[in-house]
């Protein structure tokens, strides 16, 4: 989209030591025109505004950009709000990009990129125009699967040496693998109400192809809060319907369950009233449909 609009794409990488050439080449093939490598002690750790915010701001000041985009499942939720605040720009925690026509014609070969930001209740959206705002827009994009090859592995790398803040005020006490990390990266998220019992979660998890994450609505709440999938299917009570503003949201609810709030779900499937076997049958049918869902959305496709 940026190349269509005649814009330049900078990839910003945080690293503790010299950036691996293979990483730079991969970013080039994914479409980056230039790589800014922020190198400094502690920058290889998971990002926090305290530790990484100043380095990111230093990189962004070099450009300066119209748009700062974070990928889903990345550093956006930690670094995006602080960066937008420092830049005095707009922020979109869950956004789509649009290529559109400017109200006034721009130079040949230059289009206009808009950011579409939905309200949390999905009732409306704002179209933010960074050119009109005269301030950058910081946004987190939805999960979209592996990138294709759109550029060249021959890419310029500019190194920015970052001095760590004199006093950070944060120390890591413990760390473990995040078992819910897959939900933050998934382009399709299935949220299962635990009231349905463990077998529903187990069946759907077993049937889910790569790129589709299945999580418990309660135990997975922290990851669901930060996930930006393209498709969400909530299975269970209406209260489990928790799609992000920009997602296509499906709900599979019992016949007697209250209808989701207006606009909360795009597609509703009611489990027929009757024996519990009907609910089990619906879960089985949904599980059997997941490969088709993965194929249709491109979830987990090979790069």
């Amino acid at each position, binding site marked *: 989209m940026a190349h269509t609009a005649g814009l330049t794409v900078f990839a910003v990488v945080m690293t503790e030591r010299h950036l691996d050439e293979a990483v730079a080449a991969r970013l080039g093939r994914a479409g980056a025109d230039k790589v800014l490598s922020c190198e400094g002690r502690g920058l290889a750790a998971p990002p926090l505004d305290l530790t990484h915010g100043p380095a990111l701001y230093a990189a962004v000041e070099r450009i300066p950009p119209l748009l700062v985009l974070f990928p889903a499942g990345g550093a956006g939720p930690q670094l995006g709000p602080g960066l937008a*605040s420092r830049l005095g720009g707009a922020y979109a925690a869950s956004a789509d990009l649009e290529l559109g026509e400017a109200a006034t014609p721009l130079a040949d070969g230059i289009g206009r990129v808009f950011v579409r930001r939905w309200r949390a209740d999905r009732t409306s959206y704002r179209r933010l125009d960074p050119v009109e705002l005269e301030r950058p827009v910081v946004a987190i994009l939805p999960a979209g699967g592996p990138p294709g090859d759109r550029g060249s592995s021959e890419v310029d790398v500019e190194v920015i040496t970052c001095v760590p803040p004199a006093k950070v005020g944060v120390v890591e006490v413990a760390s473990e693998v995040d078992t819910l990390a897959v939900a933050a990266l998934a382009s399709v998220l299935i949220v299962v109400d635990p009231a349905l019992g463990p077998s529903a979660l187990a069946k759907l998890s077993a049937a889910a192809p790569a790129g589709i994450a299945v999580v418990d609505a309660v135990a997975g709440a922290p990851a669901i809060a930060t996930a930006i999938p393209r498709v969400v299917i909530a299975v269970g009570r209406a209260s489990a319907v928790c799609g992000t503003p920009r997602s296509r949201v499906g709900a599979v609810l019992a016949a007697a369950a209250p209808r989701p709030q207006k606009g909360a779900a795009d597609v509703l499937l009611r489990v027929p009233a009757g024996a519990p076997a009907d609910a089990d049958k619906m879960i089985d049918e949904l599980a059997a449909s997941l490969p088709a869902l993965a194929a249709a959305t491109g979830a987990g496709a090979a790069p």
Partner: protein
Amino acid sequence: MNIVACLHAPPPDPDGTGLGRDDIHALAQALALAEATSGQVTALLAGTSHESGPLQRALVAGAARAVRLGGEDYASVDFHTLGQALASGIKRIGADLVVAGARSDDEGLGAVPASAARHLGFAYIGNVEELAAAGPRAIEVVVRGGGRKRRLRVDLPAVIAIVPATSGLPPASDRTGNPSEVELLTLNDPETTVVRRRTELLGKPEPASRGTEEVKAASELIAALTR
């Protein structure tokens, strides 16, 4: 430990909690921490007198004070302005720790706490799911990111944005929320003039054309979602 819990007045919803999207979790974490540290929680909201419901709810739940930041129409301001206004109020109240719901504003941005932190000069940690005391001038938080679930010790003062965890709002104490107990704080002196930004005003909201389509089978559900 003085803890300020920043709340947001959500749109009217008869089935809702009366609190912003993640505020119920922020308030629960703040109250639990205050109890563990013999501290106190002050609930703070920027809005009109008609929007003070969350403050009354906080008093019922156990907050020691509830303060409404008035004198301005905050309904249409952007997160920069709201963060600056809240920071001005927090400076007047005094705080070691500020907690807020990560996605409690109507657009679910989660940027107000970061803006408040910048104006306060406090450290900012986003997407915190657990909060615990770690001595008189520090807390421990649990955050996810980079494929890790980490427990961090954070020096105070700090602003923490809370995401849902499994904890809910503690049972209400035996006190009752008296609306007259909500204090009014106005930012009407020159030193606390709020600078209005126009960052968001040019992006006008557009109506969504979303309805709910009912289907009869799982295969139809998949087809409709990917159409």
